[in-house]
Structures are given as structure tokens and as C-alpha cells.
């Protein structure tokens, strides 16, 4: 049982602080205090910068939404019946005098591409649900 009589080897050393002089500790303390004082300033500065960026992005988003609505209005103006009729006359088209109706076996042209939520349930105007 010799081994049991041996002192256990040291497996853990105590925390050893660097050996600083008094002035070293003063400088370190001053650095810590300065860093602690600067941290909120830096944090505040970062937050302000990000806040500004956020504000700018929100402004950009608003501007884009406004532009989108302006474009919607512009498209609607460009496809107004009056304007199309005026442009048709400008390029030399004239109103048809005698309509000729022809029966064909094929399906008609595709309806205009407009947002689905705005399309009536029945594609044929005036064909609402009969009560």
C-alpha cells in the first residue's frame, strides 16, 4: 500500500495574477474604467447609426411604395379608353362603320392581364349570379 502513502499529485494550480507594479495596476484600472465609460458611448453611437440607417430604409420603402402607386395610376391613365381612342385616331385608325359578325369555332383571345383579385367571377360582363 505504498502508493496510498504518497501525497496526491497537484492537479490544480491556484489563480496566479500577473506580477504588476503599483503603477501597472493603476494603469490597468484606469483602462478598465475608461473602457467601461466608453462602452455606453460606443453602444449609443452604434444604435444611433443603425437607427439612422433604419430611418433611411423606411424612407426608401415609403418612396418605393409611392412610386408604385404613381406607376399604377400612370398605367391606368395609359390604358384609359379615351386615351386609346385618341391614340388610335392619331395613328390613322377610324371607327368601324359596318360591323360584320362572324361565328368561329375557336376560343376568343385571352382576356386582359389584370390583377386576379379585381377580375369578376364571370368573365363575361353583365353575367352576374342570377337570383
Amino acid at each position: 500500500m505504498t502508493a496510498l502513502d504518497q501525497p496526491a499529485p497537484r492537479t490544480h494550480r491556484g489563480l496566479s495574477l500577473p506580477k504588476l507594479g503599483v503603477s501597472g495596476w493603476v494603469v490597468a484600472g484606469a483602462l478598465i474604467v475608461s473602457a467601461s465609460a466608453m462602452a455606453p458611448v460606443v453602444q449609443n453611437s452604434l444604435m444611433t447609426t443603425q437607427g439612422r440607417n433604419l430611418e433611411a430604409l423606411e424612407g426608401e420603402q415609403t418612396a418605393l411604395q409611392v412610386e408604385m402607386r404613381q406607376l399604377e395610376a400612370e398605367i391606368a391613365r395609359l390604358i384609359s379608353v379615351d386615351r386609346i381612342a385618341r391614340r388610335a385616331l392619331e395613328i390613322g385608325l377610324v371607327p368601324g362603320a359596318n360591323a360584320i359578325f362572324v361565328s368561329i369555332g375557336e376560343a376568343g383571345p385571352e382576356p386582359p392581364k389584370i390583377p386576379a383579385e379585381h377580375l369578376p367571377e364571370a368573365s363575361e360582363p353583365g353575367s352576374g349570379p342570377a337570383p
Partner: protein
Amino acid sequence: MAQQQARRTGRVWLPAIAFAVFAAVVLARLVQVQILEHDRYAEEARSELYASDTVFARRGAILDRNGFLLAMSTDTWDLYVASRVWNDDATARRASEAIAEATGHDSTYLRTLVLESGLVDVLVARDVPYDAGRALLDANVPGLIGLPNTVRVHPAGDLASSVIGIMGADNTGLTGIEAWYDAELLGTPGRVIFERDTTGSPIPYGETFTTEAVPGPDIILTIDRRMQVAAERALKQAIEENEAVRGSIVIMDPRTGEILALATQPRLSFEALDLSDPVQVRLLRNSVVSDLYEPGSVMKVITAAAAIDAGFVTPETTYEDRGIAFVYGIPIFNWNNGVYGEQTMTGVLQQSINTGAVFMMEELGVALFHEYLEAFGFGRPTYIDLSGEAAGLVRRPTDSDWSPVDAAAQSFGQAISVTPIQMVTALAATINGGRLLEPRLVKAMVAHDGTRYDLPTRVIGQPISPETSETMRQMLGAVIDPGWYHPGKPRYYTAGGKSGTANVPIDASYDDTQIVSFAGFAPVDEPRVLILVKLDENANLETGTEAAGPVFASLVDEVLGYLGVPPNVEQAATR
């Protein structure tokens, strides 16, 4: 040296007790503030710390039945100037010139406006286009303040302006659909509560509580822009040709009560609207629902429908016209003083014989005749979704000013005042199987999330049977196709209809001026459209058949062609 020992005393407890009492008071106060009245003080602290702002919802757009935009809101700025900043002349000059350049105002006018207003913040320009306003604000023009706003734009111009209506400066609807559906279009405003800094601005990454604004739903009208254009163009032309003062055209789907086009002339102009001009203010009223008129011979359709439905006459029933009928000793003549001899009831409508209408009314009796007028909706609003609707005037036997001749006059459209929309609604019932429908201008609403809500067709009565309705269709078809030329006969489609010419009543008598109209439908067997053309005070004094009939005929050809209805007149189909 002997030391003197301090004598024991109780005075030391005095400050101790005083401190203890003070501590107890402080503790009590803390308990009161932090526990008992915690909520109140927390609320006060929040009110100091937090600010709130209203987020206005985007107003819904108005579209035609096929999804084409008729009215929508775009963003603008209302520009204010902080007048104190302009106390310095050089600053005022520089700033006013910058604003004037962007807004088109005169810079001198702006300076005078701001410096002489006596207000702190002075409104200098309303609804400035968004880009121009943004550029001004980004340029940091001294004293300039921009508040976001919206303005209603109408991409299709003044099309259907009397239906759409106008908005006030406070962005609420004043007339038309804008007013009737204002609460829906407005949406629900949102609210933002945020932590604020000393200037009141939100603190970045501070606590924020947001209730999102819910934009107003888009409103899909029953109006079809193509038919609206056709109606407005035809009406304008008819007014010019017949030298009329004003007029209106209504196109309805008689199966559903949906108004496909509603045109009035003169119409209001969104761009040139001047509410200080009384003439323009009158245009805000939609004459189709607000103005009363005597329908004249168009009313014979209702009289005939009632008499046939009650079983007193058939289209083949005959009577002898002598050109005059006496009612309680008062003579009633035909419109042209003509004498037609023996006539069927169909002939009465074809020739528009007043004595024939009186004959049918007398067969019915006054009480039953009035029951039918009631059933067809005369004398009460149709409840169409437009404000300012008139109920009409129907003199009844119970009225103090009732005359026994009134019922006879009512049978051919006098002594009764109706609105055009009432007349169209009643006529729809005579041809659609006898169902009285509530006319409507809105087909559906589409919420911001895309949910579509279709407004249902509302049947509000059954004044006549489906069999009578079928009979009326054939009779009215014979009116337009009598075997001789009729100006109201379309080229490509079978149609039925009836004209009306009535003098304008003035103080219990009649003026020289007249109101002419033509109401008809097509095709005869399965009506797709019902059209009323009405011209007021046409100086050329043409009758309803001559003045309004051709307008009806050309409109039928145009709109049924547009709807893709195959022509059913052999002559045209084989062209």
C-alpha cells in the same frame, strides 16, 4: 486622576426614535408609491416616456367591373412654413423662392401669406406632388414643414364622375360612391406607441407597440367603362343634335339590377371643379336618382303590365278609340289628337294611345291600379347606393289634392313624378320575369388581403307574374318592330321599348318645354340590357321616339356587340 463616568441617560433614544419615525414615513410612502399606487405612477411614467402617433389607412380605390381603375389615392405633401423662421428677410426670400419654384406659386405672394397670417405654422401649398415635396424637404428649406397627405386621382379622366363623386379637403367623400361607401373606403387607422427622446422623436430600438392600419377595401363597381364611354358619348351627341339642356342615360342588366352605365350631361369635371360656382354645385347632384320628371307614355308599359297581370286584358283585347275619353266629364285626348278606331292593347302601345291607357286603368280600377304602382316601387326610393335619392311623387286617392282624373292621367305618365332610376327599375321588372330588383352600383369589395366580397342581387318584390313579363316582352318587341319604320329599332338585334314625351309641369299647368325619353331592352327573348335615354328640354321639340329612339338603337348595337351577343336579326346576320 480619577475619571468621571458618564451618567446613563435616555436622551439618546430621542434621535433614534426620530430617525425611526422618519424611516417609517419614508417606508410608508414607498409602499404607497411602489405597491398601492403602482399602476397610477407607472402610467404617469409611461405617459412621460411614450408618445403615440396615428397611422392613417390608405383609402380604397374604385374600379370598374373589369378591374380598371377609375379613382385611387396617390401620396402628396401639404407644405407649411414656420412663420417665425421667416422673420429674417433674406431667409424668407431664399426660402420662398425655393418653394415657389417647386409649387408654381409666386414667391412674393408666399412671403405675404406667411408674414401677414399671424399664425405660427402657415399652410402654403396643399397636395404638392410627392417627388417635388420630398425634394424640397430634403433641401432643408428654412422653416418648411411637410405633412404627408393623399389626393384622389382619376386615371380615366371625368368618366363616370357623377357616379364616383368627389372628396373633400379632409379626405372624406362628399358625393357619389365616395360618400355612400366613405366608411368602407376609409379603412381603419392604425396607431404607433413608441419610446421617445427629449425632442419627441422615437428612440431607435426603444419599445414600440404598433396597431397596423388596415387599408380600405377596393370597390368594384357594376359600371363597365366601355359601356360608360359609349353612353356618355351617345348622350353628349344626342344633346347637341336635339338642342337639349341636359340628359341622362342608364344601362342596366335587367337580370341582376346592376347598373352597367350611368351617364349624365352636363357632368362634373374633377379637374375644373369650382364649388363657388352654383352651376357646378348643382352638378354634384346625380340627376338619375335626384331629379323627378313625368315619364309620359313610358308609363303605359306599367299600366299594360298591371292590366294584363290582373287578367282584365290581353294583348289582343280590343277597344274603340274615338280620339277622346271623358273621365268624370273631363276630356282626355291622344298625344297627337289622332283617332285610331278599333285597337288591340298591343296597338295602344304601338301608337301610344292615351285613351287606350285610360281604358286599361278603368278596367283595373283606381285602387288596384295604385296597388300595382306601389308594387312596381313608385313613390318610394329604390335604395340604390347613391346619396340624395328622391322618392318620387304619386298622388293617391287618400291625398287631399286628389282628383278623380289623376288616375287616368297617371295611366299615361302624367300626374306622377318619378326618378329615372325608379323608371328603369320598374321596367326591368316588366321584362325579367316580374322580379323587382334593388338597383346597385357596387358589385364587390376587395379587402387589402385579397378577400373578395360580392354583393348579392336583392329581389324586393314580384309585381307581376313571369307569364305577364313574357307577354310584355313580346308586346314591347312589337312596339319597336311594328311593321313600319321605327327610329328605335337596332340594326343587329331584336329589341322592345317604349317612348315618352311629357311637358314640364309648372304650377298645376304645363310649360312649353318637354322631356323626351325612350326606354327599351334587347334582345327581346333574353334581355341582356335595359336602356333608358332621357333628354330634357330639347329645343327641336322632337318626340321621344324621334329624339331618343335612335340613341337607344345605336347603343343596343354597340353594347351587345361588345358583350359578345350574337346578332339575332336575320337581315344583319346575313350581311
